[in-house]
Each structure stands twice: as C-alpha cells, then as structure tokens.
C-alpha cells in the first residue's frame, strides 16, 4: 500500500470513528435512561407511601428520555469538544501535559544528543519537518509516542526509561516506529480518539464526584441525598460501561496501526533487530512499558508499547498486540527468550521497497517511480538523511537551533543575487520584522549563498523546531516578511517560489492548526490549476519554447490517462498570483488528485530523459508544497 492509500485509509478510519462515537453515545443515553427509570421506580413518588402494586413500571417516559438525552449529549459533547480544542494546541502541548521536557537541539548531554540525531536523521530522510523532541523524565518504563495535529507541529516524546535502557539501534527502531505513525497519517486519528474517549469517560468522572458528595449535617432532605448518591452510582457504572466501549474502540483502531508502524520502522531502518530488541527489552524489564502519568490513560493507543499494567479484561481490550507476537513478526526465529538479542541481518525486510533506491543513474527515473517514493522511506534514505545533515556547515547548523537564527537562515535563502533587489529585500525585513533579523540575515547571507542546493529543503525541515518557538505575534510578522521577500522581485524562480510556499505552509500548519483536511476541487478547477503548475514547471526546466511545450504536453498526457485530448489547455505563462492560487488549492486537494498532479509534474520534468539535481530538488520542493513527503534524491546525495 503506498502513501496515498495509507492516507486515504486513515481518513476513512476517522470517518468510521465518528460513527462508532455516535453509537457509543446512543448506548450511553439508553443506559442512563434505563438507570433513570429504575431510579424513579425505586424512589417512587414522594410523600405518601404506596402499596407496591400501585407502582407500575413504564418503559416509555418521554420527559425523562429527553432530559437524559439532552444532559448526556451536553456532557459528552462538551467534554469531547473541549478536549479536542486542547489537543489541537499541538504535539508540544500534549507532550507537556504528560510531563514532557523539551530537549534542546543544542544539548551537550550525550544521551539527549543521541536521541536528537536519531530523530533528525529519520525526519530528513523522510522529508517531514523535524518534530519537537521531548523526554518524559518521570517515566521509568520504556515507551514513546508521536503526537500532533499535522507533521508540522508534531512532537516525539521518549521516556527516561527508554533513554536509559535502549541502545542506539533500539532507540532508532522506536523512533522509526513513531515516524511510521506520522507518515501513515495516524496522529490526527489518534487525537480524535483521545477526545472521544475523554467525552465518554466524563460520565464516570461525574459519577465519581457524585459519590463523594457529603450531605450537609442540618439538611433534612435525606431523600435528595439518596437520589444523588444513587444517580452517582448509576453514572459511575454507566461511565465505566462507556469507558469499556471506548476501550474496545481504542483497541480495535490501535492494534493494526501498531503492526503497520512496526513494519514501517523496519522499512526505514532495514534493521528488524533494533526494533525487535527494543521490544525484548520491554518484555524483560520489570517496569515494562508502563506509564505513570494519569493523563496517559486516555492516550493508551498512542504509545509505542502498552502503557497500563496487564489489562484486567485480557487481550481483547489490549491497545497493542502482545509483545511476543510483535517480536515474532520482526524476528521469525524468536522462541520466547527475551534475554537473547536478535542479531542484525544486513538486508532483511527491504525486498520490494519502491522509490529511488535501486535505480542506476539519473536518467532511469520515471514519473511513476518518483511518485512511488513519496512516504516510502528506506534504509538508504535514512543513511542519506544522516549524510545530508553532516554536509550542513556547522555555522548554519548552529544558527538554525535558535528561532532568530532559523528565521535568518531561511530569509537568507530567499535573497536575490541582484544587489538592488537585495537592498529592497533587506529593507523589507527590517521594516516588517526587525532590525535584528535584518542584521542576522546579513551576517549569514554569504554562508547561505554557498550552500549546496540539495541542503536547502533539509535545512528548512531542521529549522522548524526552533521556528515553532516564536511567539504568535512574531509568527504573523515573519510570515508576512517571507511573503514579501519572494515578491520583492518579479523574476523569482520556481524553486524559490516553492521554498517560500513550503515555509509558509509549514508555519501556517504549526501555528494555526487548520482543521480543513481536504477540499474537493471541481474537475475544471483541478485541470486549470494543474495546467498552471505544469506550465511553470515546463518553463522553469527548459530553455527553448519548443522544449517547454513538449515537457508540458508530457505532463498533460498523464492527467488524461496517456493521451492528448483535443482542446486541452495550452501552455500558459502564469504569474506569481496565479501560481500562488494554484498551489494553495492543490495543496488541500484530495490525495487522488495530488497523486495525479505529482505524476504529471514528474513526467513533465523527466520528459527529456534526463534529471539534473536541480530538477530532482524542484520535484521535491513541489511535493513538499503539496504536503507530500518525498525523500531526498539518493543518487544526488551519493555523488
């Protein structure tokens, strides 16, 4: 299953989740209703005592039913919505609510350094922004999770236990598993699930409070107290019943995703032994993967390993497949002896991996091959990621660890070569942002200008953790600055344009947490936007008009299933505004459409049977703009 299918699958699961949630709420309403009926039956009418035969059981009592429905929907709905609103604050917020402490990218602590390196490698290799990294210092168990509303505001958190107990290979396996969740589109699904569980759990919480209400001494209304007590008891039981249903849903959604993330991790690291040994460590470690933070309960499905003590209800309600089974999946020779580590086998687990790997030389790449690389990370890519990071000059590396430095490096990337344009851009920075940023940008301009082109996107990815630390006010003026930098001269290249869009989108996602996932486009709109993008790509990659037209038509053919229909839109010359609009609408188009555009763009780029590094990076930049993680071009990194 490729990246696009995974994403669609996660989306479908989200839809099913809503259905399950509604079912759970209906179940709760019915349960509360029956409890309310029983309660009123038990208490009976106040005042005079009646003979038992006078109290009749009635199934249908509309006033009670509607009150119950109203109260339950109000309680469950508002609790779930409040939770969702809190979760939308992003990965860093979630990690902090579990007691996480952010690891500074400048940390000198060797364990923290190791963790940062592992995370950065995998992120650069996959083409997703580097997440914020957290350590959970209070947790002795071996566990980890990835959380976030989108990859741009993701956080990866690792427990202190995992930091202490795992070797580098094992830690890499765990981190790769978490990136599997990020790339498989599990994060948002997981957060919706958390909100849902906490909505369902709210009744249990209320019941718990109600049971702890003490009657005031001088109160004469013993009956009212009894009602509260009984109602509380009923709510507690129903609440736990709801939580029980929640757990089933949680487990059903979670278990398959865990196997999938394990498989992804092996694909990324080509080292099933690392992950298998990490799982064995959990199995052989007294604390296992247990999480102590109370907030961990409703997030059970988000963790690397099972977060609670062996489930009372047994395996049916386990959020994670049994450790033995997970290990067996990774290491078929596993016999249940967790004290013996699996041995790394160089090439296991990568057969049939798509992508750039295995293609010899630049020209062999076809559009379809390029697109199949999206979200399909391989071991080679992780190596390439680490190679790319090591190619970044130390000075730049140092700068992008600070918010101002990161902003300055990114603005310096957008500086024009022409001195007068540059002067204008500098003035734009100081008036729209600050003198300090202008000065810092100026200090770094020479270093940034000398950078290898294939380092630019990785540097943008690596800059994001620092940029996320800007205040919202700074974010607003910085994104304005970025936009005006690109517009300072009208001869902006397509690559520069894409770079600016990537920064713009990532910051937007990180700071504003847009809720819009997919915007359906009409076929006409899609075609016109795709044609605008293809025109720009064809013109950017070809000197002569004829060559541009040929490249453009190669792209158009893909959109029409391999043939050129009569009356297809002819090549245009879209200006910045038009291109901007096209990118914006395509970046939220359904995955199916984005896939088609990427296929068309890649065929357009490779139509001359030759891929230059610049073209490969252009393809990557466009994929980034469309929110598709395309790994680095391997041959280019190797050479």
């Amino acid at each position: 299953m490729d990246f696009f299918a995974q994403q669609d699958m996660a989306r479908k699961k989200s839809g099913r989740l809503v259905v399950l949630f509604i079912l759970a709420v209906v179940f709760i309403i019915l349960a509360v209703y029956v409890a309310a009926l029983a309660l009123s039956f038990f208490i009976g009418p106040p005042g005079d005592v009646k003979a038992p035969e006078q109290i009749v059981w009635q199934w249908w009592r509309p006033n009670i039913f509607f009150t119950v429905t109203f109260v339950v929907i109000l309680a469950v709905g508002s609790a779930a919505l409040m939770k969702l609103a809190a979760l939308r604050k992003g990965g860093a917020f979630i990690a902090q609510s579990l007691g996480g402490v952010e690891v500074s990218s400048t940390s000198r602590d060797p364990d923290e350094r190791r963790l940062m390196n592992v995370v950065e490698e995998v992120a650069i290799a996959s083409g997703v922004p580097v997440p914020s990294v957290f350590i959970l210092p209070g947790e002795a168990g071996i566990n980890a999770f990835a959380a976030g509303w989108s990859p741009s505001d993701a956080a990866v958190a690792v427990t202190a236990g995992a930091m202490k107990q795992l070797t580098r290979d094992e830690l890499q396996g765990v981190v790769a598993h978490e990136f599997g969740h990020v790339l498989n589109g599990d994060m948002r699904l997981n957060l919706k699930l958390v909100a849902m569980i906490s909505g369902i759990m709210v009744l249990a919480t209320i019941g718990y409070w109600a049971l702890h209400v003490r009657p005031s001494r001088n109160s004469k209304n013993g009956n009212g107290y009894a009602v509260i007590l009984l109602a509380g008891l009923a709510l507690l039981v129903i609440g736990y019943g709801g939580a029980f249903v929640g757990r089933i849903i949680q487990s059903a959604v979670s278990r398959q995703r865990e196997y999938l993330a394990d498989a992804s991790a092996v694909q990324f690291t080509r080292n099933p032994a690392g992950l298998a040994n990490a799982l064995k460590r959990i199995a052989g470690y007294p604390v296992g993967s247990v999480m102590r933070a109370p907030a961990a309960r409703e997030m059970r499905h988000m963790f690397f390993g099972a977060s609670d003590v062996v489930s009372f209800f047994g395996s049916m309600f386990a959020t994670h497949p049994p450790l033995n089974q997970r290990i067996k999946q990774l290491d078929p020779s596993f016999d249940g002896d967790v004290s013996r580590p699996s041995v790394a086998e160089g090439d296991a687990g990568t057969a049939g991996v798509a992508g750039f790997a295995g293609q010899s030389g630049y020209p062999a790449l076809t559009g379809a091959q390029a697109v199949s690389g999206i979200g399909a990370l391989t071991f080679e890519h992780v190596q390439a990621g680490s190679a790319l990071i090591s190619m970044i000059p130390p000075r730049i590396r140092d700068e992008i660890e600070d918010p101002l430095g990161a902003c300055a490096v990114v603005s310096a990337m957008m500086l024009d070569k022409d001195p007068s344009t540059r002067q204008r851009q500098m003035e734009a920075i100081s008036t729209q942002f600050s003198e300090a940023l202008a000065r810092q940008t100026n200090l770094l301009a020479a270093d940034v200008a000398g950078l290898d082109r294939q380092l630019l996107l990785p540097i943008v990815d690596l800059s994001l953790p620092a940029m996320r630390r800007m205040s919202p006010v700074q974010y607003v003026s910085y994104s304005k600055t970025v936009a005006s930098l690109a517009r300072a001269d009208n001869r902006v290249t397509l690559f520069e344009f894409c770079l600016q869009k990537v920064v713009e989108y990532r910051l937007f996602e990180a700071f504003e947490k847009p809720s819009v996932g997919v915007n359906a486009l009409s076929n006409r709109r899609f075609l016109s936007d795709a044609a605008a993008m293809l025109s720009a790509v064809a013109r950017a990659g070809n000197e002569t008009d004829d060559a541009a037209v040929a490249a453009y038509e190669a792209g158009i053919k893909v959109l029409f299933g391999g043939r050129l229909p009569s009356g297809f839109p002819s090549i245009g010359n879209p200006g910045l505004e038009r291109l901007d609009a096209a990118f914006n609408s395509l970046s939220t188009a359904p995955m199916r459409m984005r896939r088609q555009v990427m296929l068309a763009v890649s065929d357009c780029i490779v139509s001359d049977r030759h891929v230059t590094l610049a073209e490969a990076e252009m393809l990557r930049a466009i994929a980034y703009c469309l929110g598709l993680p395309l790994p680095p071009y391997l041959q280019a990194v190797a050479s």
Partner: protein
Amino acid sequence: MGSTLIAVLVLVGLVVLVAIIVAGMYNGLVTLRNRYKNAFAQIDVQLKRRYDLIPNLVETAKGYMAHERGTMEAVIQARNVAMAAGKAAAANPGDPSAMKALGGAETALTGALGRLMAVAEAYPDLKANQNMLAIQEELTSTENKIAFARQAYNDSVTVYNTGREKFPTNIIAGMFNFGPAELLESTESAEERKAPRVSFN
C-alpha cells in the same frame, strides 16, 4: 417522582458543564504559564552564551589595553552579577522580582560592555585582531537572538497576564494562585540603541 428526577438530572448537567468550563479555564492558564516559562528558557540559552563570551572578549582585550583595567573589571563584575540574576530568574521565571533584577543586571552589563567597546575604539590594533572580530560578531549575533527571544517572552507574558486578568478566568487565577508575570525589560544591546545603519552587501 419524575419531576424530582428531572430536576436532579438538569442539576447534574449544569454542574458538569460548569466543571468542564472551569477545568478548561484552569488548563488554559496552565498552558499559558508553561508557554512563557518555555519562552524564558529560550532567552536563558542565549544569555548563558553571552556570559561565556564575555571573559573571552576581556581576555583578548587585555593584551592590548592594559591601562583600561578598571573598565574591564567593571565588565566582569557586571557579567557576574547578571549571571547570578539569570540563575535566580531561570530557577523561577514566575517570580516578578527575580525577573526585574535580571532586567536591571542585564542593562548594567550592556552599559559596561558599551563603555568597553567605546574605549576599544582608541586601539586600532585590537580592532583589527581576528579573534576580537570573531568574538564581537558572535556577541552581536547572540545579542540579536536575546532581543528576539525577549520579544517572544514578553509576548507570551502579555498573553498570560491578559488571560489571568480577564473575567471570568481571573476567578480561577485567584483560586489557584496564578500570580502575575513580569516582562523582561531593556536588555537591548548597545548596538540596538545606537541603531546603526547596516550596510547590506
């Protein structure tokens, strides 16, 4: 019978709603407080870097301007005071007096550094020293970063303070002891105050 029950149910519903809202406001305040504390951590990183750079700067300058011992000692003195204030503020960014003290100490340090730089103007050899140039550039860069991080910190303090003063959050803030946070004022670099013309080339 039924009516008692309905009253109880509605009461329960109201209590739940209020509880959820109160919990939401409390969590909101905690988030805002964490945010400004984290923002301070960002300043702290760069402040420490500045404290580390200053002895190097003074060491390099010593060789050239032995007669300016007093100025150099004043810088080291101010740096030590600022470092202690920084440590106190980092230990508890929520303590307004610690933050005020840090602001004052940083201003004093910047002033002392400015005087040292002014004196250094008279020593062309020192100004041409490669090591000196490198340290000066790093100092400038660090001061830029401090200014930026300070802006982010002050932004988040403002948001937090507004949040805790607004009705009805102020009730929750009072109940759970969310004290006011202090802005970090005036650690601007000498360069910022001079507002030099930057030549972009």
